[in-house]
């Protein structure tokens, strides 16, 4: 990989598509995936102009944007307004990661008593602006494409960017993790090692990582399309796996994704069925 020196970006103001990256409640891991495209980053920067990416650039331009990548979930009243503005300014809005597509791990507070949560971390919680829920971006504005995962897969990110640059629809497979396990010749950990694995109900995208490392999938890419969570959970209940073991598995990084949420609530003996939702 090498690049030829060329005039400073500022000098060649051709109309390249304008990319912006926005962050809401999140860990930065998903936007970091953009910087982790080491081989592609510079050539990507030739195809589009990164005009708003606080983590990586001090150049801050205003909208409108052709492509907005949105990381993170909505947890504060201020962000509730900000996402509307981002949507208004952006032609295509792509949400990246479990926080943005399903509320992230912080959505666990949707099940908890908020004041108790605050007190647990802060001595004087009054000054904190926080909603009682963490919600996905799509709950608030229209989203053009969703990239799943905690974190997203950088190859999928590249594919989406390339697709948007060439004006085609990105290919985002919606099958289960199982298919990818088999494609990479991993022996099923659920059957062979009796691990509880969410692979059959989890959206593809990671390349079936966990089972390849001898552990069950914990669902970080969220529910697969038309996933049958109830059946898998019932199967385990039937085998004497208890609800307290199963519920936290459904309720982690994609806790608020509808399929995982409903299934978890159904089997949770202590469920107050999403009172905050």
């Amino acid at each position, binding site marked *: 990989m090498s690049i030829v020196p060329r005039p400073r970006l500022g000098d060649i103001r051709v109309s390249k598509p304008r990319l912006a990256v926005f962050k809401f*409640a999140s860990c*930065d891991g998903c936007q970091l995936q953009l910087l982790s495209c080491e081989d592609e980053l510079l050539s990507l920067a030739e195809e589009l102009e990164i005009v708003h990416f606080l983590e*990586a650039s*001090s150049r801050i331009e205003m909208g409108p944007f052709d492509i907005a990548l949105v990381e993170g979930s909505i947890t504060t009243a201020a962000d509730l307004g900000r996402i509307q503005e981002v949507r208004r300014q952006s032609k295509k809005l792509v949400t990246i990661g479990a926080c943005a597509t399903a509320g992230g*791990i912080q959505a*666990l507070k949707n099940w908890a008593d908020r004041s108790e949560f605050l007190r647990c971390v802060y001595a004087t919680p009054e000054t904190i602006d926080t909603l009682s829920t963490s919600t996905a971006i799509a709950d608030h504005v229209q989203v053009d494409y969703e990239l799943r995962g905690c974190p997203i897969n950088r190859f999928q990110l590249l594919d989406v960017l390339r697709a948007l640059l060439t004006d085609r629809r990105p290919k985002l497979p919606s099958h289960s993790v199982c298919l990818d396990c088999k494609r990479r010749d991993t022996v099923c950990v659920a059957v062979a090692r009796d691990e509880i694995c969410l692979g059959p109900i989890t959206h593809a995208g990671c390349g079936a990582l966990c089972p390849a*490392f001898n*552990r069950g999938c914990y669902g970080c890419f969220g529910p697969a399309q038309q996933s049958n969570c109830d059946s898998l959970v019932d199967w385990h209940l039937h085998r004497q796996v208890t609800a307290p073991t199963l519920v936290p598995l459904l309720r982690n990084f994609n806790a608020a994704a509808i399929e995982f949420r409903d299934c978890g609530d159904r089997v949770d003996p202590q469920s107050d069925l999403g009172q905050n939702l």
Partner: protein
Amino acid sequence: MNKKQIRTIEVAALTRVEGEGALRVVVEGERILDVQLAIYEPPRFFEALLRGRPLDETPDITARICGICPVAYQMTAVHALEQALGIVVTPEIRELRRLLYCGEWIESHGVHMHLLHIPDFFGYSNSIELAQVYPHQVNRGLRLKKIGNRLLEVLGGRAVHPINVAVGGFFKAPRLSELRSLADDLQWGLEAAIDVVRWVASFEYPEFKGDYEMVALRHAEEYPMNEGRIVSTAGLDIATDEFEQHFEERQVPHSTALHAWQLPHRSTYTVGPLARMNLNRDHLSACAYELSESVEMQWPCFNPYRSIIARGIEVVHAFEEALAIVRRYQGCSPARMSYAVSPGQAREGMWATEAPRGLIYHRYQTTSDGKIAHAKIIPPTSQNQRQIELDLAALLPQLLAQPDSAIGLACEKLIRSYDPCISCATHFLKFEIKRL
């Protein structure tokens, strides 16, 4: 006395730092009234949401505090929990954990140096612009970072939020061939990293001497990563489980991050690469030590702008150490110590490790049925934050003649040299503007 003009300088969004924050400075004439490093990153309540979770999920959940240094969270969490449960890992597991941490240091320092910080020294607003003029250096940086990522992927499954870290060890030990296949890249990386340090050391640095206490881990034999005693440049020397007797974290109104200070006087202190190197230079790997001697730098160093050099030297160290581990590796069996949660016994464990940005501390109480009862997490950034503000206050008087934008930029550069990770400051509050 004349009524003086009140001047407010604001940097609405700090850039090229991880996470989101702002800076607000209030000046009256020559007097700095207030400096606030405001963190408006929405709070995510990790300590609260950990409660009641099965303890073996802790490394996976705490990783999500920060996508830049997830390994630091995982490492600190597993050690703290192993302490609670009385698990002792094998030397092989210990070594692989060090290797994993090397990967994260390489990656995280790589991001900070090449993508976030170096553009400052050339007046560019990002590394893509920098690459137009210094393509070789930027490409080299990207490749270094990529090798760090590769190491994390082989050992952890992926670079962000690795899936292979477990309480007790690893879910799966890497195959010999997998690790060995990294050797060539690591060798290249070692040499390239040395060149990077030489390059970086040739930059011009502002004169600035902080009057600090610097705190880091210190291990008897090795450069600190996963364990050690907590020591400071002022002579502190305590075991990690005494941390909370000496340090305290408090909420401040202008930030969603908690601030930490040292007891009994609530004095500030800093952590990070400079602190580590000032306190542990004798344990650097051969090349790294030699480099630390040959570059133009006074040790101990108290100039935060120069921490990029320390960071660079640590990358050299990480490459050299990773290479040695990879060459020594003979497999690791068992990959994971088995453990059972003994019923009826609640336990507590605490640990500190060295995240890329400095000392990180976790304490957990577990319930008798293997759940987390209580969690306390103190990341590096909340420990540095107060000191950053003080540094800014010290810097500002020399700058006041300049226009606001220039002051803002100069402040941002100082902040960036600390490599603050705002996402990390777990338990962050909302910034409220104080009107004068």
